């Protein structure tokens, strides 16, 4: 009996020690930049695996009209609320232009009417927030691929950086996002100007937002102002390729 108690005590002490170490050890690890970049190896592996398996660039699932969510939840910035944006809203976005520049042969400045005249695509897709919820909506917009061909990419072009009109939470950093050319030329990657048959509402990114359907919600940048074609991402924000990427989230948001 004495023996049993000793063993039990030993095991209990061991378990508490291990548990304590696990709990107290994990938070400092979570805060360590070196350890976090070690954990990010998982992201590299995920991206390499998914890109390898995406033979022929398969499409994201498309749904039918009856699957459309009753209410499409708006998240992130719901109104940029800056003087510049308010002026654009006041003019019905007639003064709004999308600049496409950077490493391109023929930089362009496109009005909403110009974008609506481009080859378009309509797709009923599922929007997956990184928080875990999903909503289904019908998006219509200009395909990015043909637009990139029109402006002509320079040989060293690798990424499209989306510059947005909003500063999430009213902070100093403007929202931005980036995708590579594999997603840039994917047929479902569109510059959407309509949701469920109506022009985009302010809460959903009026007048234009990106849809890159095989990735999570934070990649679907709203309030687009400029698409800049670049070779490297380290010159923007804190260098990770997007507003949320700069705050620890994965650049490859396919999972």
């Amino acid at each position, binding site marked *: 009996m004495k023996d049993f108690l000793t063993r039990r005590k030993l095991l209990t002490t061991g378990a508490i020690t291990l548990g304590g170490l696990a*709990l107290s050890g*994990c*938070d400092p690890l979570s*805060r360590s930049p070196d350890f*976090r970049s070690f954990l990010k190896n998982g992201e590299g*592996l995920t991206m390499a695996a998914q890109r390898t398996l995406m033979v022929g660039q398969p499409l994201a699932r498309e749904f039918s009209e009856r699957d459309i969510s009753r209410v499409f939840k708006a998240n992130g910035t719901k109104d940029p609320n800056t003087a510049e944006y308010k002026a654009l809203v006041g003019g019905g976005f007639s003064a709004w232009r999308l600049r496409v520049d950077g490493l391109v042969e023929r930089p362009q400045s496109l009005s909403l009417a110009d974008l609506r005249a481009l080859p378009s695509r309509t797709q009923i897709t599922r929007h997956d927030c990184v928080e*875990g*919820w*999903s*909503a289904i909506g019908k998006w219509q917009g200009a395909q990015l691929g043909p637009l990139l061909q029109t402006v002509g990419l320079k040989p060293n072009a690798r990424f499209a950086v989306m510059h947005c009109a909003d500063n999430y939470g009213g902070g100093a950093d403007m929202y931005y996002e980036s995708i590579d050319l594999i997603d840039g030329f994917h047929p479902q990657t569109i510059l959407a100007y309509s949701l469920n048959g109506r022009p985009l509402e302010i809460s959903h990114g009026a007048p234009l937002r990106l849809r890159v359907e095989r990735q999570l919600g934070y990649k679907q940048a709203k309030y687009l102002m400029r698409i800049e074609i670049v070779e490297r991402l380290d010159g923007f924000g804190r260098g990770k390729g997007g507003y949320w990427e700069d705050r620890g989230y994965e650049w490859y948001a396919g999972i």
Partner: protein
Amino acid sequence: MITQQPREVIYRHTRIVRIAHWINALCFLLLLMSGLQIFNAHPHLYWGQAGANFDTPWLTIPGGFPGLLTLPSYHDLATGRNWHFFLAWCLVINGITYVVFSLINRHFARDILPKRQELTPGHLWEEVVHHAQFKRITGPAAKRYNTLQKLAYVTVIFVLFPLIVLTGLTMSPGFNAIAPFLLDIFGGRQSARSLHFIAANLLVAFLIIHLVEVVIAGAWNEIRSMITGRFVVPPGPIAGEDVQ
């Protein structure tokens, strides 16, 4: 008069089983905790393809799980995801290694899969009654897994772990494009999220039973056998008297 039986030590767990067991245990614990961090970002579960605040959840955990159970302990979804996906790779690579080795060296066939004669209702009932008495299995019967134990391991290895990995992948919009049939198998992304959560709960239930059984069977002896491989057979009825 008590006759002293000779102390019998057997080599119970191969090195691959021991290493895979502890890697799996660590990965599972941390995946569970980082999973709860991710769950807390939207502590509602739905059935179907989609589901958000305006839809009706089948489960809501107000305020989510306490920080004591999450990884990190403070609210940080980005870091929780970093942990979760890194560990998911570790779990899957470890699991595949274990399965391949266990097929080659016939660990599954020899130790894990129940024999036909073990699956008779009479035998199963006998084992249920024995388990209900919380009695330690001794003698030669302790050298092999009992049938309920085998069935639990089969469920965990061939049902729950594949289910939790596949439902996890079904939540990935990238993997949806690669393998859209998973959305049909599980009934949509939000159903997959619910099933992922249910599978995690069932694995926790298994873990609790597993730990209780380890204590009943002799904690120190069992833990040592999973570290060094050596297992002291608890003295008991000699061969012929034990229940099969």
